[in-house]
């Protein structure tokens, strides 16, 4: 959003934008840290710590096989389905609900306690109850995602709305803004960054939810690969699945964080 021209024209009064770390140096350290981690894994596997703990090289090999025979892709296709549906539901209903809570005292009074409790509760414990009520199908898994992701999404939207700088709201009223303009031109833009953060954190919770559902409800997708390979003592394949899951989640969330920084750079964020 920043225009380079403005900085070039800057008079001495302008506050300098903080300098960035050397990107190359940072990248070098990341490589060293990965080499160190995978090296330690390889050594630990060859020691061996346990018969069930394969070295990094075997795990990587197993990962290659599973990518080649398509089993990993099939597993992800089936795992991502409830995750995407669940996050989409939360994205629409959860954000809407959070905004309503932030704007209306009545909605806030009625529902805030529920979400505070849901946010604090260990949601994994509710999953057996979901199975009891909704069986073992897609509905139950979507619900598991929603239950884990919704609280953080709703609460972030709510807090974003409620934390709007009161001085900006007063400014809007002083310049004869209507309530509608206040919401559209001040409150929503102010809360946008926090709402997006909520969606990102919600997705992180959704990953947890869907994996727990696949491990606890019915083994499908990624959960099935983990459970099955563990039961037939194919430990390299089991670890490869787990490692791939960690990588997918980490890369997705990191990517979203970058999108967030690009959309809402700290300089123009209200918060």
């Amino acid at each position: 959003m920043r225009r380079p021209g403005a900085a070039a024209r800057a008079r001495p009064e302008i506050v300098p934008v903080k300098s960035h770390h050397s990107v190359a140096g940072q990248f070098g350290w990341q490589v060293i840290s990965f080499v160190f981690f995978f090296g330690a894994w390889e050594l630990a596997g060859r020691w061996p710590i346990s018969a069930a703990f394969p070295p990094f090289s075997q795990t990587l090999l197993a990962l290659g096989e599973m990518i080649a025979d398509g089993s990993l892709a099939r597993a992800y296709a089936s795992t991502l389905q409830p995750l995407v549906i669940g996050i989409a539901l939360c994205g629409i209903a959860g954000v809407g609900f959070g905004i309503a809570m932030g704007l209306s005292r009545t909605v806030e009074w009625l529902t805030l306690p529920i979400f505070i409790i849901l946010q604090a509760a260990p949601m994994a414990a509710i999953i057996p109850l979901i199975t009891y009520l909704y069986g073992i199908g897609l509905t139950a898994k979507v619900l598991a995602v929603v239950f884990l992701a919704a609280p953080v999404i709703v609460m972030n939207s709510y807090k974003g709305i409620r934390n709007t700088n009161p001085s900006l709201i007063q400014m809007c009223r002083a310049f004869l803004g209507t309530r509608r303009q206040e919401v559209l031109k001040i409150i929503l833009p102010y809360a946008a960054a926090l709402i997006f953060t909520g969606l990102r954190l919600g997705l992180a919770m959704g990953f947890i939810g869907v994996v727990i559902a696949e491990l606890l409800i019915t083994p499908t997708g990624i959960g099935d690969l983990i459970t099955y390979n563990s039961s037939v003592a194919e430990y390299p394949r089991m670890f490869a699945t787990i490692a791939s899951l960690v990588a997918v989640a980490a890369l997705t969330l990191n990517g979203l964080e970058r999108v967030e920084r690009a959309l809402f750079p700290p300089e123009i964020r209200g918060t």
Partner: protein
Amino acid sequence: MTMPDDTIVEVRGVGKLYEGGVEALRGVTLAFPRGRLSTLLGPSGCGKTTLLKIIAGLIRPNAGEIRVNGRRVEGPGPERAFVFQDFALLPWASVLRNVAFGLELRGVPPEQRHEIARRQIAEVGLGGFESSYPNQLSGGMKQRVGLARALAVDADIILMDEPFSSVDEQTRRKFQEDLLDLLEHRRKTVIFVTHSIEEAAYLSDQIVLLSPRPGTVSRIIRPEIERGKGPDEIRRDRRYLDTVDEIWQILKQYVA
């Protein structure tokens, strides 16, 4: 110097009691002359900002009323514009959009409001910064944006809430001089809240001294300093120095 019919803002018996029992103002009655700069001066917590926001229509008084041009105030109005202590700029909007924001809220079409905003930006000395964002500006520049926004809606009365309190001393002095210049051309009525005695004496045609909580009018002083002279001369002027001393003698008793 001022005749009663030249009054633009009247404060009649205004009292304000906040929830929780804090009495900010009690029985404040005042008149503000048209086309002049009046300051509200007093120790912190005397309710001067509360009084200014009541005049703005942003806070409702528990007692009394405000009349602007003889008409009772029920809320904010087009004839009053506010300059905020913390600037209240939209961080995601350029200087141009921020200055034009008051007009945007009134539904003025973009070309028209941007043209007005550009003029105001130039007038407060920020030409060339139209596409900058508030975080790229210093405190003094941000407050110029706040002032330009208030000027852009062309209100007769400009209400300023300690506009220079978060600005360094050099910038403050420069800004004060610019403000006086600007007012000479535009014939605006300005009501200005400050806790700086020097600032009040330097800028004002009328100084309203408020007592500590609950705020009541303690004294009204009209410095009648000759405005024709340069700023440095004014600061050495007998009347200016006497005014500063007079105010200090009154305020001294409120300092614990």
